[in-house]
């Protein structure tokens, strides 16, 4: 079964992470899905691929009835993020999908007939859920050309998509416990998947201005407290976009 854990709960707002799916096929990358619940309204963040839809659905209804899930967020277009859209489209017909403007024509290929596609402008925007305000934070070229993260200023929590991702086994803990050893699990991924040092540094400069207690990536383990700053320092020092070198060899 998929693990589900409450990662924040205060003032009627609850953040949940769903991941470490033991039913998942070996060759499919493990993903973290998130849900934010504020009162009687919920947002699904990067709900995942087709392959994990049924497990996700069974997990989600432990925490909220389907009619309360009125918003879905797709940080970018990748199949492990949102290829389940066609299935959610049949189970959450009244929901809205918030996803990058430039990916609309592509994401719709997954099936988006009932769900309302809200095209996020490049500069980002905010979203009010149950009277609480969240931010769609631009993260373009990290790694996708149209990419957003999801920030909760009150919970001080940033859902950071592929930034901070690590490839870890299914029984790995949900939080980073030893940052230094964890970098080995992140390095190759970030160097290969993140294409632009400029985009990376721009994102780091903007994110440093935010108050972040938890950094929640879409793969691997979450960062808490001082590990968030450690991650930003580590990421800043890392040279990314190295894939072209193998072509030049």
């Amino acid at each position: 079964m998929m693990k589900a854990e409450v990662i924040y709960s205060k003032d009627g707002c609850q953040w949940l992470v769903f991941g470490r799916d033991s039913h998942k096929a070996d060759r499919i990358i493990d993903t973290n899905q998130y849900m934010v619940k504020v009162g009687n309204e919920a947002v699904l963040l990067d709900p995942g691929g087709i392959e994990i839809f049924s497990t996700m659905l069974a997990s989600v209804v432990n925490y909220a009835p389907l009619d309360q899930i009125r918003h879905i967020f797709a940080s970018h277009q990748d199949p492990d993020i949102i290829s389940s859209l066609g299935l959610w489209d049949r189970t959450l017909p009244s929901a809205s999908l918030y996803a990058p403007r430039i990916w609309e024509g592509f994401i719709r290929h997954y099936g988006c007939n009932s769900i309302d596609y809200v095209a996020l402008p490049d500069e980002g925007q905010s979203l009010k859920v149950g009277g609480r305000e969240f931010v769609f934070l631009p993260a373009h070229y990290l790694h996708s050309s149209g990419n957003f993260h999801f920030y909760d200023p009150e919970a001080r929590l940033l859902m950071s998509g592929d930034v901070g991702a690590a490839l870890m086994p299914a029984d790995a803990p949900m939080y980073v416990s030893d940052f230094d050893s964890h970098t080995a699990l992140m390095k190759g991924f970030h160097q290969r998947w993140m294409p632009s040092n400029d985009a990376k540094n721009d994102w780091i400069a903007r994110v440093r201005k935010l108050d972040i207690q938890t950094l929640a990536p879409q793969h691997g383990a979450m960062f808490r407290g001082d590990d968030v700053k450690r991650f930003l320092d580590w990421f800043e020092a890392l040279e990314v976009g190295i894939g072209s070198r193998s072509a030049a060899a």
Partner: protein
Amino acid sequence: MELNAAVKQDFYVLAVTLAARLNEILLEARKISLEAMNAKALVARGGLEMRTFKPITDYMSLLAKETIAVVSDINEAALHLAHQSLQEMRLRDVMRQISVRLPDIEQAPFGQSVLPSLDALETDVRNQQGALAEKIDHLADLLGSIDQKMRAARVVSATARIEAAVCGGSCEKHFLDVAANLETAARLIRTRVTDCRKQLLTASQ
């Protein structure tokens, strides 16, 4: 909660197979058209002596034209069938995905909230299957109409042989060839149509 998602043959695969077969039918229909044009030229050269052959060549042209038009209709119907089939398959896939975890969903605190979606899905699947059946019938009717035309072609071919004998002389061989070619093309088309109908019947059972 009970699911009733009968797994059926996916018709979008069949539609592609039919399209390939239809192309062969189209080629044969064009051969009939060409044969009719050649025969018309012969009739024009033969003058009064061959005037009785003209209605036959005219009918051959009409037959070819109508067959080509029906093939075009079938192509469109097959495309609609493919689209309908994909939609129906997607719906069944959602139901299948939900059914995999149905016991867990039912036991979850908010599991009952899935029921309205599930009911709507079942209704949609039934509607899609009904629409699919209609499209299959329409396709079968179109194939049937080609079959009828080819039966008529065989009658025309027999008539052409009689007329060839009546005309006699140097034209007899030409017209006998026209009749033979028409018969061959009609037989090939009927074979292809029979194959298509069999596939359609097998898939829809």
